[in-house]
């Protein structure tokens, strides 16, 4: 019981943090304190103030406003990535896990090769293939995330396909596709969902890392990783420029991982 309460507490804390950040990101669609792209020569690298609670960057743009839109970019990319990864991963995993045989053998062999590439490396190579920009990053990371989802879903299908309820469904004349998507998949859902939260965090990390390397989101679009990279040049004069995007990134990951703990 105590254990349970503690877990709930973790989840609640995580949900509150993630919720606030998500609200900030959503809010940025309609309102930010300043235009995040509006340059102001008078406020270049201005420090913290009531008017600019997180200070200003090297173009005098309001960092809070940019953190909000950057957070939105990061969340959109992470969600997109996880959706692509989970969707295609589930399809590949279900089919290979359910049917097995040489089809499974071939697909999983390639899958394992792709798994051997760390996701960031795979995405890096792909973005250099496709060129940068928000949508290419989603695509590249999404594809890079397919193999791990595929492997996980396949494992679940292997476990489920010989269970009684599946056999019953087959006996009652349900087609393969129906069995896969109506009978087994819903039962596998909880496992997929918990992987989605972990995947979300990995996607956030990967996106931030790629944007930090300058091969992700393109300026003037704000992205937390890109802001960190730009801020590194002003570490002496304006350490807050690096601090806030970084801390928001940490909070986002912390919130989601608290939620996903159990």
């Amino acid at each position, binding site marked *: 019981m105590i254990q349970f309460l503690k877990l709930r507490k973790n989840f609640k804390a995580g949900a509150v943090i993630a919720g606030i950040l998500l609200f900030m990101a959503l809010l940025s669609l309609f309102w930010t304190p300043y235009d995040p*792209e*509006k*340059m102001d*020569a008078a406020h*270049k*690298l201005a420090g913290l103030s009531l008017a600019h609670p997180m200070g200003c960057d*090297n*173009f005098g743009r309001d960092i809070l406003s940019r953190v909000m839109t950057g957070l939105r970019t990061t969340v959109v990319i992470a969600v997109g990535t996880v959706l692509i990864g989970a969707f295609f991963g589930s399809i590949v995993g279900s089919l290979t896990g359910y049917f097995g045989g040489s089809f499974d053998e071939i697909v999983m062999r390639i899958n394992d090769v792709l798994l051997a590439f760390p996701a960031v490396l795979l995405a890096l190579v792909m973005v*250099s293939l496709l*060129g*940068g*920009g928000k949508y290419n990053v989603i695509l590249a990371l999404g594809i890079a995330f397919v193999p791990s989802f595929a492997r996980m879903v396949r494992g679940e299908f292997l476990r489920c396909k010989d269970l009684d309820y599946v056999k019953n469904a087959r006996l009652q004349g349900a087609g393969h596709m129906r069995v896969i998507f109506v009978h087994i998949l819903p039962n596998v859902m909880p496992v997929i969902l918990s992987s989605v939260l972990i995947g979300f965090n990995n996607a956030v990390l990967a996106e931030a890392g790629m944007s930090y390397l*300058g091969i992700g989101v*393109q*300026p*003037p679009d704000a992205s937390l990783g890109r802001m960190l*990279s*730009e*801020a*590194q*040049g*002003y*570490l*002496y*004069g304006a350490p807050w420029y690096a601090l806030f995007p970084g801390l928001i990134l940490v909070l986002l990951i912390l919130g989601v991982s608290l939620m996903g703990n159990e």
Partner: protein
Amino acid sequence: MKKKRLALLLSVVLTTVAVALGGCAGDKQESTSQITIGIPQDIEDSLDPMKATAAGTKEILFNIYEGLVKPDSDGNLIPAVASEYKISEEGRVYTFTLREDIKFHDGSSVTADDVVYSLERYADGQSGDALASAFSNIDDISAPTDKTVVIVLKEANTDFLSYLTAAVIPKSNADPDTVAIGTGPYRYVSRSPQENIILESFDDYWDKDNAPQIKKITLKIIANADTIVTELNGGSIDMFCRLSSTQVSQLSSDYNVYTGTMNLVQALYLNNAIEPFNDVRVRQALCYAIDPQGILDMAFDGQGSIIGSAVYPTFGKYYMPELADAYPTNIEKAKELLAEAGYPDGFTFSITVPSNYQPHVDTAQVIAEQLKEVGITANINLVEWATWLSDVYSGRQYETTVIGVDASMLSAGALLDRYRSDASGNFMNFNSPAYDAAIDAAESSVDDDAKTAAYKQCEQIISDEAASVYIQDMVNLVALNNKYEGYVFYPLYVQDFAKLRLK
């Protein structure tokens, strides 16, 4: 008991960390003559002067190789490998006498054979456009004696001498791609990819008056521009060129900052062949809408020389300062022109910028912001340098780009020839019959005044036609640790390390 052991282990680890950390800080070698200079990119094309194409490579090789003549810090050509030269009356025969005492870095003497070999390599057509086309004018190169070289041209060309800055290398060097042997003040020692390049002063350098002062130069590659200030202030590098004013403002008092110009024509180059930029009114509207002073204020702390055409001020008599005011910022006028051209509500286009050149990226961001005022949306498309070269420069598959164009020598032709409608460097697809006629007149003219007038007419046409949106020759801020002095600016894109010395 257990806890004690743990505590002991921890303290050992912590001490090791502290010692190791301490060990790598503050023990800067005070050896008398060495300097670490940060450079933004490695030499990634070749150590072979003929194959070197990147401006960043050429400015380093300037210290290793010399031609028969070389530019001095005023842009004048002075004898280098040759001690003197004679040009015949009609301007077709050049006779060079090589220096008696000049040696290559490997210790061998420079012979006329080496010079002929080097020049013939260039004439082969393997080298850059400028040299290959200039050298195609050579009728004959010969070495009548061991120390004399005679070059006979097909027709006289007053600019020809400036092409003879082309490096002289020894015939015996079988692998110039990886082994750099020249006659310059510094000799190449070694390199480690993406880490550093090491040069050492050449003891047998011919010019005793300008002998290199600092023994060892380490060129440290700093690929991440964001860490430059940290490295300068931390003392990892002693010098860095082409800093931004924001970077300079963060430097510690250990640094002296030298202010010069980049010797580049920075502009928002427009692809004149595609809509809507094929309409001169649209191009002019952009010129009216974009405020170069605003760009300077926002991204360059107000420093830089605003230009209005394709020539920058260092070119002296060729430069036309009045063109800088040809299109004073005027939003209303820009809107009118856009409406006339059929874009009353503006339009959307992309600016392709190479991501490794932060000043251009910054400039593009400011331009995008300025253009919002006239209803134009500019999307920035950051690309790798490689992609820029293949898509924008060679392929001409782009809408607009922000870049700086440099000159290989101090003749206006070096900057203006690329606007000829059939020039291979005409990546903006500028096409004007009037211009082609004017540039022909300029290049074939032997009378200096007529030549200058013709080049000025070219500049005027570029401005009238608004071939691109010309912005500035950027300010070049060089930070040098105050232990050293003697940094010298050239009117060309080179670095002269031999002038650096300890205070």
